[in-house]
Structure formats: C-alpha cells, structure tokens
C-alpha cells in the first residue's frame, strides 16, 4: 500500500477516485470476458457438451485408469506438478549458480558461468528434448536400467536445468544489489562468509528478487507446455489429444488457453500478495 501511495500523488477527487485507481482493471476486464465466454458456452447444449468433453480430457486419469486421486490426474494437474517441482529444483540450481557467480573462487565461478552461458544459448525446447531423448536413455544404459528418468522426472529435470540458468542470474543480480557495507558489517562482527550470506545478504536479496522470481514462476508454468514434445500428457498434450479425436481445434485450444490464463492469473495475484507481505516496514 505504502509503495503505491508513495508513487502516485493523491488525487483531488478524493477517496472514491483513489479506490478506483487502486482496482487492477485488467483483472476485472479478463474476468468479465471469461464470464461472457462461459455464459455463451452454457447457453448452447452442443457447445456445453463439447467443452465438457475437452475439460474431461485435460483433467483425465492416467491412461488405463478409470478412477484416480486428484493428485494423480494428468493434463492440468500434471502441468501444475511439473511447474512446482521443476521450479523448486530450478530455485536450488539458481541459488547455487548465483552464489558461485559471486564467489571469488575461480573454479566455482567458471563452472557457473559456463552453465549460465551454455544454457542461455540453447532453446528450452532443445534442452527438454536432450533431457528426454539423450540423457535419460544414456543414464539407463550406463546404470543397467537402474536409473530410469523416463516420463515426469526427465521433463522436470529439463525444465529445472533450463530455468536454473536464468534464476542463477536473478540471484546474482540480487546479491550484487545489496550494498557492500552489509557484507563488511557482518564480517566485522566475526561472521564467516557463509554466515554473512545466509543471515545478512540473502534475506535482503530475496526481497529484491521476489518480482523476477515470481515472473519466472509464471513463465515456467507456460513453458512447461514444452514437455508435451517428449510425450508428457500435460495440459497442452491432452488438449491436442482432444482436438485429434474430435477435430474441434477451436474448442480444444480455447480450453487449453483459458486454463493456462486462469492459472497464471491466480499465480500473479498470489505473487503480488507475497511481495506486499514481505516489504520491509518503514521503507518507500
């Protein structure tokens, strides 16, 4: 709240105008459009049936199962799972990569720079194909089928490896944005470098990079659609299956697009709430 009040001068119109300006109008417009769209669908019984069928495709149980737990469903649920697990792994990779990028050790610095530059130069789609069709079979062969990453694990690893490079840069920028005096004050009190990082630098850096971390999470939700190329039955893949069965591309991709939009909308609202909550008191 303070941030917004600080950036926009109080208007002469008073509380009502202020309140109107606070409303995120783009959300309202999207909600109105979605409501109109859904209303139209519900009005026609044929449309209703088609979209209902599409919805069943994108929330189906895994192949060959009549019933299953919500958690085990494919389509939307698989997309969400791949995003959450993939992002969690990418955060770990990004944190380590970022710490290495700011370290004075030439070896760790070289490793992380290599990782960042190589991965950023290759399309995520290609990385995911590598994970699915190169790394996974090679690992299976090398370990006598002991390590089998086929399916979900390989998809998640591909996403995480690709996004980890971008998050490493986000973490690096966040750490570098903290004034040098903070590290010096911590060290002058006798803290070791890791202690200073953990208790002084990172807690501040996280607050700085919360917006890009949130944006990357939302971007990953959308990019997770790339895992459909290695045959994971995510939201996009299930939508395509519906289209190929019914020849109804319009309804199929409407369903897919609308569900992605709904998920990213909810996420961006959550991200904003977290950003507000974590703002430090007494700062503009």
């Amino acid at each position, binding site marked *: 709240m303070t941030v917004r009040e600080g950036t926009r001068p109080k208007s002469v119109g008073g509380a009502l105008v202020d309140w109107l300006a606070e409303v995120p109008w783009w959300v309202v417009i999207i909600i109105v459009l979605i409501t109109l769209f859904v209303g139209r669908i519900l009005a026609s019984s044929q449309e209703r049936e088609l979209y209902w069928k599409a919805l069943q495709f994108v929330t189906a149980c895994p192949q060959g199962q009549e019933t299953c737990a919500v958690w085990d469903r494919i389509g939307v649920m698989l997309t969400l799972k791949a995003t959450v697990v993939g992002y969690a792994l990418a955060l770990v990779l990004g944190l380590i990569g970022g710490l290495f990028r700011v370290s004075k050790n030439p070896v760790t610095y070289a490793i992380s720079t290599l990782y960042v530059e190589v991965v950023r130069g290759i399309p995520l789609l290609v990385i995911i194909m590598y994970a699915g069709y190169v790394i996974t079979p090679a690992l299976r062969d090398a370990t006598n089928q002991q390590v089998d990453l086929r399916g979900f694990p390989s998809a998640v690893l591909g996403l995480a490896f690709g996004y980890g490079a971008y998050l490493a840069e986000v973490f690096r920028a966040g750490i570098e944005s903290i004034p040098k005096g903070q590290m*010096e*004050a911590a060290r002058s*009190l*006798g*803290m*070791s470098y890791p202690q200073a990082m953990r208790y002084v630098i990172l*807690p501040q850096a996280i607050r700085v990079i919360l917006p890009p971390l949130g944006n990357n999470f939302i971007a990953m939700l959308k990019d997770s659609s790339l895992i459909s190329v290695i045959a994971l039955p995510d939201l996009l893949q299930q939508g395509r299956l519906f289209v190929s069965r019914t020849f109804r591309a319009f309804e199929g991709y409407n369903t897919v697009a609308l569900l992605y939009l709904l998920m990213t909308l909810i996420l961006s609202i959550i991200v904003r709430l977290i950003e507000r909550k974590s703002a430090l*008191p*007494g*700062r503009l």
Partner: protein
Amino acid sequence: MGKQPIIILRDVHKHFGHVHALRGVDLDVYPGEVVVVIGPSGSGKSTMLRCINRLETIDQGYIEVDGIPLDQAKNINKVRAEIGMVFQLFNLFPHLTALENVMLAQRVVRKRSPEEAEAKARELLARVGIPEKANSYPAQLSGGQQQRVAIARALAMDPKIMLFDEPTSALDPEMIKEVLDVMLDLAREGMTMVVVSHEMGFAKAAADRIVFMDEGQIVEETTPEELFTAPKHPRTQEFLSKILH
C-alpha cells in the same frame, strides 16, 4: 604505559591499483587508550582502520592485534569478533529490528542462547539510550538512533577494541551529540578505541593521543593539548586551521 600494545602496525603499505593509499604506517595502541585519527580526505584514515580488522589486506608490513599477527591468524573471524567496528553509514541490517541487529552475531558467532542474546541486546540498547526502539526497523529510526544501535551491535560481541570510522559525519548536527555521548561513556569505561573523526570536542574530552595522517602516512602524533596549542608539522597547522575555521 608499561603494558604491551594491543594494536601494532609496522611499516604498513597498501595499494589500490595505482593509488598508494598507505605508505609505511607505524602505530602502537595500548589497552585502554583512545586514539583519534584526523587528516584530509583521501589521506588513508579509513584504509588504516580497515586494515586493523583485515577488511583490507596489506601489501607490505606487519599488523598485530591482541598478540595475534594478522597475516598468521588461523581464524580471522575470531580476531574480528574481538574488534568492534562502527561505520560512517551505520550499515545496520535493514531486514532486522534493532533488537535483532544486536542479537544476530551474538547468536551466530558467540553461539549464545536466544535468551542470553536478547537480555544482552536489551541491556545494550538501554545503555545507548534507546531501549524503546528495540522492535523498530532501521528505516524507522533517525540517523543518530541508527548509529547508536550500530554501536550496541558491536559492543554485544564484548570486543576488546572499538574502531570508529567517522561515526558522526553522516548525521544531522542535532544528532551528533547523542552519539558522541555514548562514545565518551565508552572511553571513560576504559575501552580501547581508534576513532577517525574531526569532532574536536570529542578529541579534547576523550583522546589520549591524536594522530594526524596525510598522504598515507602518520605525520604527527601528539596529545590534544599540544595539537591545539602547538602543532609541530606545517601540514598539521594548515589542516587544523581549516577544520577549526
């Protein structure tokens, strides 16, 4: 004084690229002494102070703190924990309250229990005159209050030495006194202090010795009385005439 110096600098040199910031500095500080360092901007005052707790490494020379040669210190963190440092811009941790600022290193470095660290932190905040600000964040405090929290934070480690780098030069005039009063109390209690400051009132009241630096060297070392009545070195005279108006 008859005792061993607690800080020894011998022929200390420091370069920053082409800048020769320290050009052979020799200094002895004895336990309980208050040494005030003055000198023009860029003369190496901050650099000398930062070398004493190895925030800067030196290129040549010898530094010993509390009997430990810094270049041989196996654990520099242990040495630093004995040396409190107060910065011009406070450098409080903005994500922590005043209380947490004073508690953090006690917990992490001294491994004190939460109860012990909090009790000590409250006691020190009371001592620097702001017990009621324990739960405020740095951004909610005035400059003078922030600097007093920073002093409490350093004192919480029970240091043997306190280093101050222009602790009042970023403060509004009306806040300078509240910080200097805390420092005066410390001096009276016998804390060993090296203070870079141009607050001549403080120097007169608390300094055992005044050190004048110029171009990376200690040009003159005297008592406050001598400095103000009869500065020996012409550059000292010139500098004093500037800061005393």
